[in-house]
């Protein structure tokens, strides 16, 4: 080393170069004479703490990392508010905006990143801010003083922190997020849903899949944000937090290699060996980093290499923490689903906890923690080191405290609980009360414990704990309950799930999964369609149908056939048709080259072999003749078969066709646990075969005999008689009440006859026939539900709903390279 100190020039004074200098001075305090150019007019502060400054929890003074004294003590020259304009590599010098020219031996470019501003009309208006540095924060705080509304565009880490801060300052805040779930890069959808609700509980309005079209203004000032769907959200302030872009202009201008960022090798030098790049402006092995841990790692590598070492930065896995007071969130690694991956999920609904580990080949590759993040660093450490976790698998998710010393058995964790530990939070039942009653009364099942202690009798989420206490107390003599869970994602039965959806007012699939402590992060092909139905049935006016949780027939509103084509059955009310309808069908069959036309057992016409792409056009043609969907594909009302009744038949006692049409017109479109087929016969000769239907009517001279719970499929079973009513109005009220009772109580895919056998035929008669008040209540709830259900799905699709369902993504006639 020469006697003269070498010149080290640093462009940028963010957290990464700050850390790099600390590392450098620790190693060789006097090896370089250091000069920093900072575009911001201040010393180095902790940018991670901008959120607490925005929310008012901290001040600028609290977040300073290096004060003026530090620079003086270390002999560093800091030019505040003076940006570098150019790097002259030939002369090995930098030129600042104020005109300073300075030679360097080594140069560190740490220009950071700049916020991405999406180029929509109105971004130039007053009141549009980015969220990047202290100046941004100060401007926002000034606006907050006047109160009003703010819109944050971007539901990622920064956007949410900004939203929380603005809310804390008393603003009305709406977050617009382009993607379906918040923080989609860091969180799985389950955790994102919990996060969304946490923000909503704080009064932050969140709109996902929101595409901002324009920022509207008046007299140069922001007035609102207009979305693609025409919604306008009025506001005085817009914060753009959609992402960051590495600031690489200086490097571009002087001919250093750049891609998305300034390209560096593992030793952190750029294509010019005397110039290092550091921080958010860097691109290393194709990756750019925006989180502090890997930037500190880079800082360390540069400090070592500046002092003659040969250190390498080899990339990093990021861990993310959201910095909003009261919301604990931690994520790291890769948490996508995959068939070669397993997941361990722990949900504690009472404590608001969701934890998910993604494991591949016995190694943790992804971590998502919500509510309790204490074990985050430990999991992250296991992830980074690639530790084999097979030994501690059983108890891994409970965290570090449960490892070692023979805690491998989950039962021992329960055994270790003190006697006064609360097991059932709803009813305040402690461990010793349960074990005491088990011994005292000789209880042997969860139901027994429920009956005698009330433990797990309310919300049911402690059922697992109660089972473990039974197993502990009874030893080998304990036989786990024979309850059949809905699927392997839960230990709850259908009945429990239905009851809890109502009791806990759960209104979305992710909410059910969290509150009922689902063992998987997103459910499976068995539970998702069931939950979707339960939520539609229970909250008809609030729940948004999740189409991706429906089987294809209900998504496409047609029946898939073995060759991938579809069949459709238009509704023929009561089995009656007309020349006009038949002509429309005939025309469609010819026009679309439909190969097979068949009369169904439900008195309708089935057109088979239709190409999926043609469905909307076929429906459009049929719709012109007045046809609507016959729901032949639905777990819902199918047909109402009728005979010709008093219109034509010499034996007919009532207008069976007319009643059938009335029932069908009243009830079509409703979703049910399994398909519902009905029939109305005009006399006891029963030509419409009403006595093997889910619900049937036999007309007699004195009125209408109502039947239910018949079957003529896998099982054959004659109906049970509900009772005799006198008028058509009464008949309809009773039929609707039975179906609504079934809609509220049936298990998904359970036909009426099975449901009625399970709960008892007399129970149905009691509630529907004998209890007029209950009957009326069922009827009213059905009517409410129909308000949302009775929309012809075919015409909706003719008008363009779910267009993507029917058209191919692309048709490639010829493979052309691009």
């Amino acid at each position, binding site marked *: 080393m020469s006697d003269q100190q070498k010149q080290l020039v640093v462009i940028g004074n963010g957290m990464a170069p700050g850390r790099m200098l600390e590392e450098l001075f620790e190693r060789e305090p006097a090896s370089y004479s250091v000069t920093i150019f900072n575009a911001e007019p201040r010393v180095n502060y902790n940018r991670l703490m901008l959120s607490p400054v925005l929310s008012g929890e901290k001040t600028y003074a609290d977040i300073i990392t290096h004060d003026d004294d530090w620079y003086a003590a270390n002999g560093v020259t800091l030019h505040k508010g003076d940006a570098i304009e150019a790097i002259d590599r030939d002369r090995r010098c930098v030129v600042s905006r104020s005109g300073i020219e300075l030679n360097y031996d080594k140069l560190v470019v740490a220009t950071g990143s700049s916020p991405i501003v999406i180029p929509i009309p109105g971004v130039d208006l007053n009141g549009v801010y980015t969220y990047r540095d202290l100046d941004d924060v100060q401007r926002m705080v000034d606006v907050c003083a006047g109160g009003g509304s703010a819109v944050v565009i971007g539901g990622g880490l920064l956007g949410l922190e900004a939203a929380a801060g603005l809310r804390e300052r008393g603003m009305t805040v709406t977050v617009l997020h382009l993607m379906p779930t918040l923080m*989609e890069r860091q969180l799985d959808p389950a955790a994102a849903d919990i996060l969304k609700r946490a923000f909503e509980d704080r009064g932050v309005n969140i709109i996902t899949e929101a595409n901002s079209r324009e920022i509207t203004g008046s007299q140069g000032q922001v007035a609102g944000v207009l979305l693609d769907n025409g919604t306008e959200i009025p506001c005085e302030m817009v914060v753009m937090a959609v992402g960051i872009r590495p600031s690489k202009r200086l490097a571009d201008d002087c001919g250093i290699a750049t891609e998305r960022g300034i390209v560096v090798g593992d030793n952190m030098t750029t294509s010019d060996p005397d110039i290092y790049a550091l921080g958010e402006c860097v691109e290393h092995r194709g990756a750019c980093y925006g989180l502090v841990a890997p930037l500190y790692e880079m800082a360390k590598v540069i400090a070592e290499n500046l002092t003659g070492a040969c250190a390498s930065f080899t990339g990093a896995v990021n861990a993310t923490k959201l910095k909003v007071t009261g919301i604990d969130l931690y994520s790291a690694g890769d948490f996508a*689903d*995959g*068939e070669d991956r397993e997941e361990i999920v722990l949900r504690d609904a009472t404590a608001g906890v969701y934890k998910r580990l993604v494991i591949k080949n016995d190694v943790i590759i992804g971590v998502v923690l919500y509510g309790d993040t204490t074990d985050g660093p430990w999991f992250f450490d296991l992830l980074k080191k690639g530790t084999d976790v097979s030994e501690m698998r059983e108890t891994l998710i409970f965290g570090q405290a449960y490892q070692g010393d023979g805690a491998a058995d989950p039962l021992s964790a329960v055994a270790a609980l003190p006697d006064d530990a609360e097991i059932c939070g709803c009813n305040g039942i402690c461990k010793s009360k349960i074990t005491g009653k088990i011994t005292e009364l000789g209880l042997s099942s969860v139901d027994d414990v429920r009956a005698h202690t009330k433990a797990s009798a309310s919300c049911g989420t402690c059922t697992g704990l109660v089972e473990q206490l039974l197993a502990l107390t009874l030893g080998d003599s304990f036989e786990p309950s024979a309850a059949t869970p809905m699927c392997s994602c839960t230990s709850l039965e259908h009945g429990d799930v239905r009851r809890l959806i109502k009791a806990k007012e759960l209104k979305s699939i992710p909410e059910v999964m969290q509150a009922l402590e689902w063992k998987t992060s997103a459910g499976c092909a068995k539970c998702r369609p069931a939950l979707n139905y339960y939520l539609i049935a229970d909250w008809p006016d609030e729940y948004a149908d999740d189409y991706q949780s429906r089987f294809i027939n209900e998504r496409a509103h047609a029946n*898939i056939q073995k060759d991938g084509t579809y069949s459709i059955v238009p509704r023929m009310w009561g089995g009656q048709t007309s020349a006009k309808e038949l002509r429309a069908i005939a025309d469609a069959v010819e026009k679309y080259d439909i190969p097979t036309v068949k009369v169904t057992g439900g008195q309708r016409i089935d057109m088979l072999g239709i190409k999926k792409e043609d469905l909307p056009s076929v429906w459009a043609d049929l719709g012109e003749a007045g046809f609507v969907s016959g729901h032949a594909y639905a777990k819902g009302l199918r047909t109402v078969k009728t005979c010709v009744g008093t219109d034509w038949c010499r034996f007919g006692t009532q207008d069976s066709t007319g009643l059938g049409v009335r029932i069908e017109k009243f009830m079509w479109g409703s979703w049910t646990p399994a398909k519902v087929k009905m029939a109305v016969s005009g006399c006891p000769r029963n030509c419409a075969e009403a006595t093997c239907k889910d619900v049937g009517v036999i007309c007699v001279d004195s009125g209408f005999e109502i039947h239910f719970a018949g079957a003529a499929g896998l099982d054959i079973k004659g109906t049970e008689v509900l009772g005799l009513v006198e008028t058509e109005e009464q008949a309809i009220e009773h039929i609707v009440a039975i179906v609504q009772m079934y809609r509220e109580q049936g298990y998904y895919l359970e036909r009426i006859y099975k449901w009625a056998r399970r709960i008892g035929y007399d129970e149905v008669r009691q509630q529907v026939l004998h209890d007029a008040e209950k009957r009326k209540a069922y009827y009213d709830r059905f009517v409410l539900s129909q308000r949302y259900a009775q929309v012809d799905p075919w015409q909706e699709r003719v008008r363009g709903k779910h267009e*993507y369902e029917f058209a*191919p993504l692309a048709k490639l006639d010829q493979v052309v390279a691009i």
Partner: protein
Amino acid sequence: MNGESIVWIDIGALSDIPPSGARCVEIDDRTIAVFRDRDDRVYALEDKCPHSQGPLSQGIVHDGCVTCPLHNWVISLASGKAQGADSGSTQTFRVEAKDGRLLLEAGAFS
């Protein structure tokens, strides 16, 4: 084309496929199902279940797999292999989502 380079075909936007859904790409008389999972990963498989050629694109997407709409076979999106007790395999193709666009490998079916 040499063995190193891959020719990609732009087949549409990622947002054209609903999350946990699929769309089809038709190439002459073959159909390729392109899946998007809830984490925005994309996969491409021949739109045929190894069991009885059911259109996998029409199934429910879950846990990195799709359940065939015809007989509920569960097929891995990444490997195309039937899961559980069933055995059989569907051809997979390379597909990537880049800057919001979907790129399908051209070589596999040319």
